[in-house]
């Protein structure tokens, strides 16, 4: 561009300068501003900037603002630095909820990923039964979360719920999720498995469908067992979708709120009060905006970091 400009300038100089002195200034002008600038394109970016600022950046900054202040009333507040972060990380209740949530996520992953893959492997590949299986498997995903909670709250009851009644009266096991903390934990865990294993199954199913038929024929010719076929063909080719499934299920289960809130409300005692339930108790119930702000930021950061670690580990281990 600059070369062209010079050529154009010298032409102008060569032709015009000898005739009139004004030509010289014309050449200088050409050199100073080689191409016209137009900043109007920024208007196209503006809607995005405004909406992201309005919906994400400003609310987050408000939380940051609260997390470093002690708020008595909207007009009466003092700066407390990192005080709330210190108190939240030392709070035994928060720590217990953190361990509880981590344990829950780990159990969710250990159950849902193998179960989802197994389901995908046995789902029919063609015919009417393929459609039937797909619809049946997808059904739990279409139910609103609080409805899932209500379904399980009733289903698991020992007196009127089919599931709870069967366990108590047919299997003869004393099961009461409103009194026993283990029973409550199992109820919430099974509910999550029921609700979300279909997602893993559908992802894995799509992954399996994309494997070309000759791979399976080659394994058949080699006399490979069903397990060897799974281990050496299906599992390696599922790496991508399983990475996504693990990330989604970790994030989602680590932030679980609605279903346990409806079923157990975090109890009995603190047995099922996960981080999100504790957070809403602090922020909405007690209206402690400072600690809640600090808590939220730490929660947010932890999920981000763990997802990054998962992603890095899962994508690197395959190479």
């Amino acid at each position, binding site marked *: 561009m600059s070369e062209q400009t010079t050529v154009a300038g010298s032409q102008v100089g060569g032709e015009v300068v000898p005739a009139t002195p004004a030509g010289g200034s014309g050449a200088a002008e050409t050199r100073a501003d080689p191409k016209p600038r137009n900043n109007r394109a920024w208007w196209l970016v503006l809607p995005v900037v405004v909406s992201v600022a309005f919906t994400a950046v400003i609310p987050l900054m408000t939380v940051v603002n609260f997390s470093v202040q002690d708020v008595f009333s909207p007009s009466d507040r003092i700066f407390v630095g990192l005080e709330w972060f210190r108190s939240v990380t030392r709070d035994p209740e928060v720590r217990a909820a953190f361990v509880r949530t981590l344990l829950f996520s780990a159990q969710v992953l250990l159950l849902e990923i193998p179960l989802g893959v197994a389901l995908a492997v046995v789902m029919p590949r063609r015919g009417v039964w393929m459609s039937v299986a797909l619809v049946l498997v997808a059904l739990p995903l279409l139910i609103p979360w609080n409805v899932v909670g209500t379904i399980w709250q009733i289903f698991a009851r020992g007196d009127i719920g089919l599931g709870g009644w069967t366990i108590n009266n047919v299997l003869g096991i004393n099961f009461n999720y409103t009194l026993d903390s283990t029973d409550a934990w199992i109820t919430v865990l099974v509910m999550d498995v029921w609700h979300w294993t279909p997602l893993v199954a559908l992802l894995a199913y799509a992954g399996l469908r994309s494997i*070309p038929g*000759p*791979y399976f*024929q*080659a394994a*058949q*010719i*080699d*006399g*490979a067992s069903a397990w060897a076929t799974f*281990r*050496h*063909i299906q*599992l*390696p*080719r599922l790496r991508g979708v399983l990475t996504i499934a693990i990330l989604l299920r970790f994030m989602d289960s680590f932030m679980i709120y609605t279903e346990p809130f409806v079923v157990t409300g975090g109890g009995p005692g603190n047995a099922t009060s996960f981080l999100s339930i504790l957070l809403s108790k602090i922020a909405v119930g007690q209206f402690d905006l400072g600690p809640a702000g600090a808590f939220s930021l730490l929660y947010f950061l932890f999920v981000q970091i763990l997802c990054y670690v998962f992603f890095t580990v899962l994508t690197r281990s395959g190479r």
Partner: protein
Amino acid sequence: MTLILDGVSVRQRGETWLDDIRLELPNGMTTLVGPMTAGKTTLMRVAAGLSPPDSGRVLVDGKDVTGISVRKRSVAFVYQQFINYPSLTVHENIASPLRLDRRFDREGIDRRVREVAELMGIADLLGRRPAELSGGQQQRTAIARALARPVDLLLLDEPLANLDFKLREQLRADLKAMFAQSRSVVLYSTADPNEALSFAAPTVVLGEGRVRHVGEVADMYAHPPTLAVAATLSDPPLNLLPGVVRDGRIECLGMSFPAPRAHVDGTDLILAVRPHQVSITRESPGALALPAEIRLAEVTGSATFLHLLLPGRRHLVAHLPGTQLFTPGESTVVYVDPAHVFVFDATGERLLATGAAEVDLHG
């Protein structure tokens, strides 16, 4: 070792994919050539035992193996796509068919893997995984995997079709040498007539699910028994011209040449000429001179493909040597020596003559 397909038919969703295939394949290499959708892959899958025929039998050394699963057969298969186990190294991939074979112990497997890897030129890649290899190396691995275990039946389904030209030429030469002294039945399918011709092996021409012809490929090229066989073995495609018998001569677009044998006046014929037999200079006194309009000249460097329009809006392609320049829209005259014309009956089912020489393939 022989493989016999006895009246094999396959029908899918009301369509006939294979129609009463009767073939006897001896040990050594046989080429299976046919256009896309001819039924090559279906035939190979049935021969391997990967899918059962709807009717007919498959016999190996006289023994009926029709219902027997591929797991219990002695078969190896190479696909057009590069199929290897993604999580295993090249060494483990090649070893995979040997693992379940009692004839090989651990050391035997290692020795055999190195042997075939050496043969396929991938001995230095044994520690790598398929994703770390080029397409050509992946296909060499897949072929090595198929060669590792001594099998009764080795099937290669267009193994070179997805490779680039240079690799294809090189692998083709390697494979030809390798299969020459093979004790198994080797069936190699291709859609490329030049590949079939260069293997110079006994050849089965397949089309629309039927066996069109079986024989030596060079013979078939010189004397195609039917128009379908001639078309399958011609690349670039055959030129077809209408002919009619008049007064003991065959007339074609106003020109005529002596008919090699007595025909009834007025009999319609199909005349087929390979593009490289069309020239722009008169090379023999008896050549037919056909007026033509130049439509397009495709230059590939070593050859020029001249697309021509003959009277009656007939399309004709001339394959000329070297780079030659033409102006589209100009009129010219092209020459066809009757000695190089295949004369078929109007249905294309019977070769009546190759040019001036009479042939009698059908008795």
